[in-house]
């Protein structure tokens, strides 16, 4: 009989063989007070007196409880803080371990872009942007921020974009997917004009509170319906952007669908094309088939990935969307995190993997590959 003592040991430091870009990382302030250095006393007093009025019936937080506390991985809680609140913990657990060369920050908690009070929305978006720069991108050059904008107020959103345009710490503009009106409508056009001028893509991240039911048939009962419903929202947003002629008017516009799923995208395009051949006269401002606008203007992040019985189906969908349009995202530190070492259901070629895990994101976000590699080495 052979007997051994069994001490525990820590996990190996590096899990991943290649450098990757992660296009959906969520930093979070522990409390609103963390934003105070960048907020006028007027707004500090305001939030302590009146709170933040979001566009939904409940005032505190989302309408549906999440499946894990703070919607986070249970192993992603740093000492004394919320998941995503401490850079050193994120570096150790995710950026270093998974060899993240470019990490795109997508702050959604909070995302004040839909606050009902326009000036308050603008002030808080500015504060979150300053916070991202001071607490994250300035401290780790692998990280790049997303500009939060008061997206329900087109002119104010455009002003926020203009303020940051040219700042290399920010690589996209970030909206939440549930807007007050469909995204193609004219109230949002100043935002698109500013994005095109700044040469920045617009990330549309699932969630938000548009004051409407989160499904097209009303308020559902369960969180699983909200999770599934994100796909509905993203479909209606892409449909609106295409049909209102936004891509025709703003040919430089690039949309990144973040955390909305993607297996629905090919059939949506097929359906739009089928209808368009018969109904083209209703929208004569469109010069091309809807699917062509989608192929030229829409990128997708792959988390959460649909998990079909036949794994080949995912590859078929990737093929249709195009290997130049796919972006890896982990959603760290949230509970539905995708592990870059395990997320793909099936083997892909080296060329496909290189594009999917890194090159597409560097190109889309205008990050120099040499700089990204240097940032990784310096970390």
């Amino acid at each position, binding site marked *: 009989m052979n007997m051994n003592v069994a001490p525990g040991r820590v996990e190996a430091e590096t899990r991943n063989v290649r450098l990757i870009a992660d296009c959906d990382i969520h930093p979070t302030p522990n409390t609103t007070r963390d934003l105070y250095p960048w907020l006028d006393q007027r707004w500090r007093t305001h939030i302590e007196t009146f709170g933040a009025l979001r566009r939904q019936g409940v005032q505190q937080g989302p309408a549906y409880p999440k499946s894990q506390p703070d919607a986070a991985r249970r*192993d992603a809680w740093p000492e004394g803080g919320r998941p995503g609140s401490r850079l050193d913990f994120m570096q150790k657990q995710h950026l270093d371990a998974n060899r993240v060369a470019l990490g795109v920050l997508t702050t959604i908690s909070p995302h004040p872009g839909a606050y009902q009070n326009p000036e308050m929305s603008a002030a808080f978006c500015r504060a979150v942007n300053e916070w991202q720069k001071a607490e994250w991108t300035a401290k780790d050059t692998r990280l790049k921020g997303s500009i939060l904008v008061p997206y329900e107020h087109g002119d104010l959103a455009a002003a926020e974009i203009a303020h940051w345009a040219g700042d290399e710490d920010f690589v996209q503009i970030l909206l939440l997917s549930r807007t007050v009106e469909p995204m193609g409508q004219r109230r949002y056009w100043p935002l698109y004009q500013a994005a095109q001028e700044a040469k920045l893509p617009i990330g549309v991240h699932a969630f938000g509170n548009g004051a409407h039911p989160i499904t097209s048939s009303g308020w559902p009962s369960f969180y699983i319906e909200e999770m599934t419903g994100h796909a509905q929202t993203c479909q209606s947003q892409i449909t609106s952007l295409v049909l209102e002629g936004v891509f025709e008017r703003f040919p430089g516009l690039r949309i990144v669908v973040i955390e909305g799923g993607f297996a629905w995208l090919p059939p949506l395009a097929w359906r739009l094309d089928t209808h368009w051949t018969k109904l083209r006269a209703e929208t004569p401002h469109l010069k091309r088939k809807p699917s062509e606008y989608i192929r030229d203007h829409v990128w997708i992040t792959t988390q959460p990935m649909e998990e079909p019985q036949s794994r080949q189906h995912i590859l078929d969908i990737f093929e249709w969307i195009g290997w130049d349009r796919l972006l890896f995202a982990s959603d760290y530190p949230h509970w539905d*995190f995708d*592990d870059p070492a*395990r997320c*793909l259901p099936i083997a892909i070629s080296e060329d496909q993997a*290189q594009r999917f895990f890194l090159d597409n994101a560097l190109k889309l976000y205008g990050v120099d590959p040499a700089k990204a590699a240097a940032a990784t080495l310096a970390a």
Partner: protein
Amino acid sequence: MTRHIVCAARDLPPGARKLVHLEGRPILVLNVKGEFHALLNICPHQGASLAGGILTGLVESGEPGDYRYSREGEILRCPWHGWEFDVKTGKSWCKPSRIRLKDYPVAVESGGALVEGPYVAETFPVSIDDDYVVVEVATARVAERGAAGG
């Protein structure tokens, strides 16, 4: 097969767990209501360490509007995506035939029995009046490690 002493039984009371590495494998040893179980600490879905998951119960329902809660403390939920595993069998609740945890034989043996082995005295200072949790694992192979892009 190699047998490994994990800890003294009294150091792993009901509800407690301990993560150990045996023969190159991370193994989670749990005491569920006095019964010991050992499971491979890699979620077969996406590889999370299960050690950070909660032990919970099972919610079942015969029809909408009716539910019951049972088997408290016997279901281990993955800390990432919430997959539920039956600690007693290693099977996942939703896909028991395809997604399951590897489990290992666990026994509680007295220190008096353990010191009879030829190697124990050199590697483990046992006090022979205690009981010990012992896990049996196949001898090491090269550890598998996933890589992005396969």
